[in-house]
């Protein structure tokens, strides 16, 4: 069976790492007698996609636990959408394997429990919003008596209740995105893929979508969020992976990703000659007037840093630790690479 506890406690295994994966046959067996609480929501091993000479995704191994919001970050063209498409069976991997909700990718029955909001998409412009949702109720094979309630709840959730009878052709891009989210939430999915879900929305719409995403987590739904809006990931995600040129360059919880890369600002009222000796061991530093900034300090080493300055005869009036934000860390990761 799945090494679920290991996968969930260990969290994401970055590209190149080897999680304690199961044999494909074991995963397949879970579809016959499902143990949904045991298997991770998503588990990939060496997932690889090549388009002729271009490698879109390089040997991706990740594990996403049930009920978490997992952020997939990366610049445009990093391969984020390709990963989602492979997990949904829209694109066939060149190598590797993936399990979604304990079943092999593309399993028809499992697709009932998956919602998907694509990045670039359109609904049938000649249908009304309610008809689009009704079509998806049919495709999901939901019990007919539940359709109307599901449709009105979905429209209500995404703020389109008053536009239920309007044709999609007249919808703005943002409204289509809202409708797309409503469609993705139909039928109470266990896993939702959101590919740049707020790219066409105004600030109010973004706030609304973030609230919906948090509500999903509260209901135990796993959310796989592709985004290049780092503030969005910072606000929503339990864990993230940063993808660049098809490869994961960093992964973990936000505190793991940012916590070990603090910045410290120090105010020194007395600084004897040579006090900076040894400062470089803590990180890159610069001085502006009374203030000295040391970048990339390990939070556990801040006390040692202060001790070093004091031992050298310095007088420290203020110590201000500052955490790096995701955007700074993101850019740093891409530059490092």
């Amino acid at each position: 069976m799945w090494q679920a506890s290991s996968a969930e406690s260990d969290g994401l295994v970055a590209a190149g790492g080897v999680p304690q994966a199961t044999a494909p046959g074991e995963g397949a067996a879970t579809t016959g007698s499902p143990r949904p609480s045991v298997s991770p929501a998503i588990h990939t091993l060496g997932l690889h996609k090549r388009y002729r000479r271009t490698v879109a995704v390089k040997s991706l191994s990740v594990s996403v636990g049930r009920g978490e919001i997992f952020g997939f970050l990366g610049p445009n063209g990093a391969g984020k959408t390709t990963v989602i498409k492979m997990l949904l069976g829209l694109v066939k991997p060149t190598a590797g394997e993936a399990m979604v909700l304990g079943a092999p990718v593309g399993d028809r029955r499992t697709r009932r429990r998956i919602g998907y909001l694509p990045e670039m998409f359109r609904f049938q412009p000649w249908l009304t919003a309610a008809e689009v949702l009704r079509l998806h109720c049919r495709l999901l094979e939901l019990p007919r008596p539940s359709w109307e309630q599901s449709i009105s709840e979905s429209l209500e959730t995404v703020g389109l209740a008053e536009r239920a009878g309007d044709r999609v052709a007249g919808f703005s891009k943002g409204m289509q995105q809202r409708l797309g989210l409503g469609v993705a939430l139909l039928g109470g999915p266990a896993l939702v893929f959101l590919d740049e879900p707020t790219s066409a929305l105004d600030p109010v719409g973004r706030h609304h979508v973030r609230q919906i995403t948090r509500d999903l987590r509260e209901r135990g739904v796993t959310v796989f969020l592709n985004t290049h809006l780092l503030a969005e990931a910072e606000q929503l995600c339990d864990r993230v992976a940063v993808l660049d040129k098809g490869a994961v360059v960093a992964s973990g919880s936000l505190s793991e990703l940012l916590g070990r890369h603090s910045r410290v600002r120090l105010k020194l009222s007395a600084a004897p000659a040579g006090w900076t000796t040894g400062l470089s061991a803590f990180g890159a530093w610069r001085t502006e007037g009374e203030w000295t900034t040391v970048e990339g300090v390990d939070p556990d080493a801040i006390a040692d840093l202060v001790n070093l300055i004091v031992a050298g005869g310095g007088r420290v009036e203020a110590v201000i630790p500052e955490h790096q934000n995701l955007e700074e860390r993101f850019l740093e990761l891409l530059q490092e690479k």
Partner: protein
Amino acid sequence: MIYRIRTIAALTIREAARRRLLAALVGITVAMVGLSAWGFDRLAHGGALTSGESTLALPQSLILFMFMFSFVVALSASAIASPSVASEIESGVLMTVVTRPIRRGEVIIGKWLGLAALLAGYAAAVSVLEMGVVDWVSGYLPPNPVLTTVYLFAEGLLLLTLALLLSTRMSTLAAGVVGIALFGAAWLAGVVGFLGTTFGIGALRTIGRISRVVLPTDGLWHGAIYYLEPPSLLRAHSLGQNENPFFTRSPPSWVYLAWVGVWFVAVLGAAILSFDRREI
């Protein structure tokens, strides 16, 4: 499975109705039928032809008009089938559909059935209107209007199936253009075959035969012609007249019709397989 196929078929039909495709086609068709009614009226009651000439001119004119409608049916089939998959992939419409618990083959069969129903409706409407109007103004009705309609529909369905296959791999425009070009080439190959038979040129005759096997639209058109031909016309051509684009001596053989059945299954199967392997 039936439920899911029916869902896609109903969606396809509803799309045609909502986009006013049917209304546009019906409008054009009514105008053409009106024009033909005027022409047949002149032919039957204009006084320029003897009764003997009329018995030959009316069926031959009807064959020409039905030939024009066979083109309209075939071109419409290609026009409605070529965007059915390609444009939905391009616009992203299909992404939200195929990620639902539906097999890709069910999407293709559903679309094929929906489009086939539309085409059947159009072929039937065209045949009833045209032959009905000709009967009304001239009193002439071909020997088997029903089988004529069936062959007309089958010819269109053949091109529809081919365009659907092309649509799984090509852009909307390319699929439409290639489908129509192949249809035109098959008809032209039929003419080449006729010339080969007439002038005893074996190679040209072979081209005509091969084209009827590869793309049987021309063979099916000749099936429609046969059931438009009254005995008087067949007798008039009994002095060694070869088949030509507007005349045939006999209906398609059962072997040929069986091959057409195999062709349908093979091309539709290829469309399913192609779409199943297509990355979206």
